[in-house]
């Protein structure tokens, strides 16, 4: 109990320190370059200087944390990827050469591509539909909570849950996996779903879609609620029906948020690892990049060079998404 009190105190202290930092630096900035009460050139000069410094004050803590916790490890990875398994001897690009020729790596790239196509699209689609539909019914919040629930389950738990769905027993014995039970009930042959090459990818994807729809739904639902009611009311008065309101008025207004959800899930898919590790560990041709990296990094003492080079590939794959986001941000800025 003591530690929890200590944690809460630290938290309050942390929040206060943060607040004090923002408030204090802002105050100091205004003192050094006062613009209120001054006139003419001095005021506008001070205002300009203060305004060029202030963003960096706002950003400083975040940038510090990002640099320490993310940029530094990235640099470290790039460095490691050029070294051997112990990270001591420089080996040039031989890790990358090995990678290109590795069948498992190519398999992973292909699978990751499938994941990227399917999971973000389905999660966002379901999330949007559910967010929109539940907004208009009285038990919407209950429905949302139920659909959100998978988000609250750890990956270990999710793996168990889906085992009860994909489990396979031989034909003729009682199936304890729901999917096979349904198949058998309709007269089909039971299948060991997660061992079917290629198709097993989709069975694993279903799990992530199941989890991430809740995420998409919550974010999109907040965005939908941000739409000013006037625009919808105006459309209703104009005689628009539900579909028209949804697709012509609501969706365009939250387009930015949809893009954000899509991007976030896409990036999450690039990192997907727990599900694959728990369900198949990349066997039966279901390997993905993040799990492959984890494998090389830590299994049997680890090969940091190869693990890091796969990590670098994962990070490189995100570049198109980055460019797209830069363009979007630039467009927004230009539109204003």
């Amino acid at each position: 109990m003591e530690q929890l009190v200590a944690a809460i105190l630290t938290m309050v202290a942390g929040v206060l320190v943060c607040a004090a930092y923002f408030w204090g630096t802002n105050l100091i900035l205004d003192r050094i370059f006062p613009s209120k009460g001054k006139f003419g050139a001095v005021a506008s000069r001070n205002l300009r200087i203060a305004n060029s410094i202030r963003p960096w004050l706002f950003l400083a803590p975040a940038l510090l944390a990002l640099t320490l916790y993310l940029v530094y490890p990235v640099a470290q990875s790039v460095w490691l990827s050029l070294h051997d398994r112990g990270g001591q001897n420089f080996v040039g690009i031989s890790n990358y050469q090995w990678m290109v020729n590795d069948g498992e790596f190519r398999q992973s790239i292909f699978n990751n591509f499938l994941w990227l196509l399917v999971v973000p699209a389905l999660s966002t689609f379901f999330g949007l539909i559910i967010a929109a539909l539940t907004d208009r019914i009285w038990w919407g919040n209950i429905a949302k909570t139920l659909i959100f629930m998978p988000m609250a389950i750890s990956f270990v738990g999710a793996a168990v849950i889906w085992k009860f769905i994909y489990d396979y027993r031989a034909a003729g014995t009682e199936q304890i996996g729901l999917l096979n039970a349904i198949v058998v009930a309709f007269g089909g042959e039971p299948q060991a779903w997660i061992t079917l090459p290629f198709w097993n990818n989709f069975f694993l994807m279903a799990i992530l879609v199941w989890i991430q729809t809740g995420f998409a739904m919550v974010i999109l639902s907040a965005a939908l609620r941000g739409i000013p009611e006037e625009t919808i009311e105006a459309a209703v008065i104009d005689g628009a029906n539900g579909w028209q309101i949804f697709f012509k008025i609501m969706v365009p207004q939250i387009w930015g948020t949809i893009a954000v959800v899509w991007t976030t899930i896409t990036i999450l898919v690039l990192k997907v690892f727990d599900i694959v590790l728990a369900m198949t560990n990349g066997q039966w041709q279901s390997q993905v990049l993040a799990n492959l990296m984890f494998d090389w990094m830590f299994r049997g003492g680890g090969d940091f060079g190869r693990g890091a080079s796969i990590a670098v590939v994962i990070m490189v794959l995100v570049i198109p998404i980055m460019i797209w986001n830069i363009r979007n941000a630039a467009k927004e800025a230009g539109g204003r």
Partner: protein
Amino acid sequence: MNPSTRSPLMCAVHLSVLLLVLLWTMPTAGLLISSLRDKDQLAVSGWWTALATSSRNAVARAPSPESQVERDGKFVISGNVLEGQGGQISAFGFSSREPAKFKPGETAELNDGERLTVQADGSFEIVSDQRMEGSRGQRIFFTASTPPRFTLDNYAEVLSAAGIGRSFLNSLTVAVPSTVIPILIAAFAAYALAWMPFPGRALLLAVVVGLLVVPLQMSLIPLLQLYNGVGAFFGVPAKTYMGIWLAHTGFGLPLAIYLLRNYMAGLPREIMESARVDGASDFEIFVKIVLPLSFPALASFAIFQFLWTWNDLLVALVFLGAGDDELVLTGRLVNLLGSRGGNWEILTASAFITIIVPLIVFFALQRYLVRGLLAGSVKGG
């Protein structure tokens, strides 16, 4: 409230939401039901059969010959194969080769001159002319239809595990500050990226997006090395709560900044313009207008960050340690599974125990996501 509430379209809406909800809750429902079932049944029949009266084949063992009583010159062992669980016997046998050879009420001649009778209610008698020998009781195979049976044993087993209360507190200690600290830092950064023009803004945003993808596993070793260095330099332990809070903050920041920036960028420009005309500074605009308006986004991020830190295992193990005093709830539950992996009955129950706190958080914050708050303040602004 809505003019179209009773239209057929609304019916379709209700129906499709119902369908989606069913689809989404089905797996979890399976988990819940499974967690309440007996551990041996779990592995042999589907969870959806749990509610139905099921027919099952089972083996019971009669009490050992030590418990025999002498009655009318005969030696008798008696008992009930159903052990008070209720149900009906439809067949029985004494050999694994013919487990359903006899109907209830019939008498089976055992190999050694003993006679076995099992009644439909499960009670049985083994009668012999001589005193029975041996240390193990006779096996009795039977087919029984049994009513559904539920048990809280799995939960009792998980909750009674030593140290679980401690781990619960540890998890809270980790998760709460790790949720609150990044929000504040991210909110300021997000505002700067959304509303304060400065050179390189788009590039910085792109970098943040790029950092979203950094695989966590990648950063563990460099960071732990750094922690060890810092710890050695200041003479403090390397694995502390402070360390893990900062680590979660660092790992959570890109998503927080990204989500908040996009939300803030979507706020109506007019409000800020008018405030600026009134002479408000960026700091005031942020604190008095943007922060309250962004509440839904802050709340959603808080939910995600809390879930992620609560369910996290890897970061906690690496930065906090796996000792008895430091173990978080997820770590404790995984340890419960035994050294060779998963016992489903424990997994199912423990998954439900871990889910409770995040759901409470979700319910608590969900109230802030309601329409009135946002719409009202937008109009008021």
